């Protein structure tokens, strides 16, 4: 029994923390929200040099060929810094799917560049004013000889302005059910129209991607045609384990902020952390954090195990962390009082990120239902 990250993993976390400290932590997110990306891009490249983008990529494609658990420190530290970019979607969704479903050509095209940090992949699933369900997918990819002709719109594509490739769920067959959906790769150069969308979380850039009869070759299909929803469900296991870690990183920072502030802020001649209304609330935040962390560690471990309750395990982590992140981020503002309501202090950035993730590719109710059905209830 050893329920902890390994010493190497903790050491790697140390490097990352130091590196992101030097880069100014949330400063990058704040600059990104103003549209400045120079420092961010340099930092992302630096992280890549530290190995962050090669962890789950086979050596033959230039990666480190490590396990999913080795990604945990990176997700946590990125979550802590609210680091912009689509690392989550690239390493936590695209890479495992490419490894599992990709053709040799696709692997050769994408994996080495991802490992090198020169390509990132984001995810286009949701469509304007449509729900997250098979029926919501109406983007159509019709066949024309060896090509697919793509028409439609994807919305809320995360950090689509930084991504080089979009992994899109589209309809390749008539109908509106679960069948007939497929994943395709569309590269930035293919000519999609990008439109930035305003997001309540300013340090998250969302993009609407429009396709007006864009031609892409047939071999851009990921996995079998018509299996898109199944592939998505598979990918969501990876994505949600990763996302839980990212949220845990954010929560950890939030609990640290609240704790430190409660030690130094004085009112009535006392550090406010002496008042049980504050102290006990921070303790409850800490419990939420530690429970989310235990669940997320286990979820990431379960990804590569044959854990019977694999789905329920991973979706518990997602569901619990989602609510917990919102909760602790909200309390953190209250504990900071007036200054917590100001733009100047980071409190609100974490709240907004927590809300951003709340229903990302599925609401809490959706994932709770997945837990239930995953357990055969």
């Amino acid at each position, binding site marked *: 029994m050893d329920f902890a990250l390994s010493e190497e993993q903790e050491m790697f976390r140390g490097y990352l923390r130091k590196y992101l400290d030097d880069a100014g932590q949330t400063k990058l997110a704040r600059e990104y929200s103003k549209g400045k990306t120079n420092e961010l891009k340099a930092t992302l490249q630096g992280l890549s040099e530290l190995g962050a983008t090669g962890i789950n990529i086979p050596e033959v494609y230039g990666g480190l060929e490590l396990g999913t658990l080795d990604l945990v420190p990176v997700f946590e530290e990125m979550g802590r810094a609210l680091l912009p970019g689509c690392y989550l979607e690239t390493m936590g969704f695209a890479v495992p799917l490419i490894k599992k479903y990709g053709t040799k050509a696709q692997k050769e095209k994408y994996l080495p560049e991802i490992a090198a940090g020169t390509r990132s992949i984001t995810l286009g699933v949701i469509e304007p*004013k449509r729900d997250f369900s098979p029926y919501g997918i109406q983007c159509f990819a019709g066949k024309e000889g060896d090509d697919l002709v793509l028409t439609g719109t994807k*919305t*809320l594509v995360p950090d689509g302005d930084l991504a080089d490739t979009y992994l899109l769920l589209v309809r390749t067959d008539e109908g509106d059910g679960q069948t007939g959906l497929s994943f395709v790769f569309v590269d930035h150069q293919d000519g999609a129209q990008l439109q930035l969308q*305003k997001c309540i979380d300013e340090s998250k850039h969302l993009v609407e991607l429009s396709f007006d009869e864009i031609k892409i070759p047939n071999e851009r299909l990921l996995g079998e045609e018509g299996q898109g929803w199944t592939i998505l469900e598979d990918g969501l296991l990876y994505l949600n384990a990763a996302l839980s870690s990212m949220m845990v990183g954010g929560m950890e920072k939030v609990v640290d902020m609240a704790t430190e502030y409660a030690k130094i802020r004085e*009112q009535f001649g006392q550090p406010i952390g002496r008042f049980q209304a504050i102290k006990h609330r921070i303790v409850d935040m800490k419990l939420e954090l530690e429970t989310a962390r235990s669940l997320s560690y286990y979820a990431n471990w379960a990804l590569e195990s044959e854990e019977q309750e694999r789905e329920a395990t991973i979706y518990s982590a997602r569901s619990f962390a989602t609510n917990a992140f*919102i909760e602790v981020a909200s309390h953190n503002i*209250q504990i900071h009082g007036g200054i917590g*309501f100001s733009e100047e202090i980071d409190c609100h950035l974490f709240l907004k990120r927590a809300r*951003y993730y709340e229903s990302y590719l599925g609401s809490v109710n959706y994932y709770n239902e997945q837990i239930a059905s995953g357990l055969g209830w």
Partner: protein
Amino acid sequence: MDFTITKNEEAFRLELRSWLEENLPPGWLDGNKELPKEKEAYSQFLRDWQRKLYEGGWAAIAWPKEYGGRDATLMEEIIYHQEMVRIDAPPLINYIGIHMVGPTLIQSGTEEQKEKHIQKILTGEEVWCQGYSEPNAGSDLAAIQTNAVKEGDKWIINGQKVWTSFGQFADKCFLLARTSYDREKKHRGITAFLLDMHQPGVETKPIIQMDGKQEFNEVYLTDAIASDADIVGEVDKGWRVMIALMLHERTGIGAELFTLEKRFNDLVEMAKEHEVNGQPLLKDSFIRQKMAGLYARVRGSLLNYYRNLTITLKQGHPGAESSIDKLVVSELTKEMAAFAMSIQGHQGVLWKEDALIDTRWQENFLASFGQTIGGGTSEVQRNTIGERLLGLPKDLGR
């Protein structure tokens, strides 16, 4: 128990309603409720509105007739708030002047102070702000450090105030400053000044909020000047003046409650109209359950308010129950706003012109975090209720 409205009260409502219909800014009733973005234009727009209220006799209904008011009853004040919320009237830029400073001066100002300020408060020529909180005096308001020192016939004031609403527009400030120091009883030695904001020693700097708005200010006081004539009450006895001033705002929380009620009704409409998976949100059993619970609580908080109002009417002054109203309305507003966010699903993170339905839900959500902090945090309200209403012992150290 009697919830009926008297004929006089009903007549009052109708009179106000028809006056509003005729006098609201052009286009307002048709839904064009945009306020000017630019600060000067914004200020002018609201000062014009204040002036119009004054001219119609609706600026300060609770004031005595002799000072330009209507001697309105508590019930008429309630009706006034209800109508203003109903029509979503423009905000009152001189809220602090009308609801707090004016009544205080009428009650305990000198004749000179009355003559100098009362009329201008009414017309909106003098917009007021309050100078209370400081960086190290938030919940612990008595800890203020801004000090006023007498030099000749002037008081020289130095220090810093924060969270001053309307500070960016204000002509005058109702300021608390320390004029002496009592180690044991920090709230002694505080004096209330009527400070002129248009002087070199006063500088305001907006605070940017987490929702992007700038409704509050830092006010830097560097050798700012006031005279003896600007003191309300006695030197070193300002704490009492401030408490009396706050009690004058006897129905302010009503406006917040009516706003909560209105938002709840809007939320119901939103949940009826917006569909997920081909079905209105309000047909989803979770949402129904949660909304039924919110209905009960919104209704309950309004009824609490009416019950507390009945107590006020009977005993002639408000009690600690108002802390209950403040605590409940702010916490409930926050919870409801969060719920309104959640039910919009992932598309609900879209914002401003890209918003899925209406950006006000997102705006309310962010703004709601200020409500449980401003005007006394929920923690302070709980202490007040526990100690004053339930007689529980005070915290150690307080």
